[in-house]
């Protein structure tokens, strides 16, 4: 009941925002960058479109770029080291076809991690970015169990040399922030998308799903895209293409 009401209102707000007064003239310009004092708004919904066909086998440019951008480092202990984005290889035993794709927080509209969080630390921002407020995270890790994409990591050890834009500390949970510091700055690329384009693959596309004129929306409209575990009806902000 509440979901359908919320969806209805959100759809209404988007329609109102996109209402064109005349060709090329809008009531609210969806694509312009916010000023620093302006809050994130539901007029935007940030997301990624990942083309698995373009993702090159063995390439880890997106993973490395993400971890450099956000100061994520490990201790050579793969079981417990944090990973905000990882490459997953899938293969079809019948045809022998195998491919690689990056998986990170899917920035769900109905995030299970937010549902289970006992303190409200796990939350979804108005523009669709799912985050952990580490100030109020108690490290219970319910969200890690609830996430169907295994997107979250727990920081087991003392952290030093964090990036000024990305505070990280022992005893809290973290995951992909969709480079929220870049989004707030008005950048049009996440670190992973930028690195992928630099490698010449262009397998990751970042953009505003609510802006019909954005490249990601046009691509999705023209060629479609699927959600991982679409059966869970989470309406993810990260969409995939080329999975077979």
């Amino acid at each position, binding site marked *: 009941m509440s979901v359908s009401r919320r969806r209805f209102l959100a759809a209404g707000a988007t329609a109102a925002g996109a209402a064109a007064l005349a060709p090329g003239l809008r009531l609210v310009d969806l694509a312009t960058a916010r000023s*620093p*004092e302006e809050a994130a708004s539901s007029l935007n919904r940030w997301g990624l479109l990942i083309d698995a066909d373009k993702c090159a086998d063995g390439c880890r440019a997106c993973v490395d770029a993400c971890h450099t951008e956000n100061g994520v480092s490990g201790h050579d202990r793969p079981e417990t080291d944090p990973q905000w984005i990882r490459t997953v290889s899938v293969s079809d035993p019948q045809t022998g076809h195998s491919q690689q794709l990056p998986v990170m927080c899917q920035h769900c509209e109905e995030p299970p991690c937010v549902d289970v969080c006992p303190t409200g630390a796990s939350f979804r921002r*108005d523009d669709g970015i799912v985050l952990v*407020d580490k*100030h109020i995270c108690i490290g219970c890790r319910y969200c890690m169990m609830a996430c169907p994409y295994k997107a979250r990591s727990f920081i087991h050890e003392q952290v030093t*040399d964090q*990036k*000024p834009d990305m505070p990280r500390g022992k005893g809290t949970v973290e995951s992909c922030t969709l480079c929220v510091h870049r989004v707030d700055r008005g950048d049009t690329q996440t670190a992973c998308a930028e690195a992928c384009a630099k490698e010449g693959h262009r397998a990751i596309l970042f953009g505003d799903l609510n802006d019909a004129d954005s490249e990601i929306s046009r691509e999705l409209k023209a060629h479609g895209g699927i959600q991982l575990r679409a059966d869970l009806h989470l309406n993810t902000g990260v969409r995939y293409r080329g999975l077979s």
Partner: protein
Amino acid sequence: MFSLRALTLTMVLAGLATTAAGDVPRPEVKAYKGETCVEETGFMRRNHMELILHQRDETMHRGIRTTKHSLKECIECHADPQTRSVLGENGFCQSCHSYAAVSIDCFSCHTPKAREQSAAVEKRP
């Protein structure tokens, strides 16, 4: 009994006298960059924690990244140019917090260091 009271009073008065004389050790807080802070110094001494707590929620939940009351900008101005940090013996935050015996939680997650010179000039377009 009376003599004990008199003795106590004398000790208290003596104590006040030394305070007035300036014998109490004061923290040596170096503010480093800039002539004035974003608010009046007395106000900042009493209320800086309220300002950064408010800004914390605004930034985290609403994506508002104004620089006036942000912890990142505190660090930019007040970092020791030698260590680039607000912690350490001459660190702006630590020198006063050690004196007042108040622990700082900020830096268990936030970096106490100012940005590298090359990154510092990178600003919003």
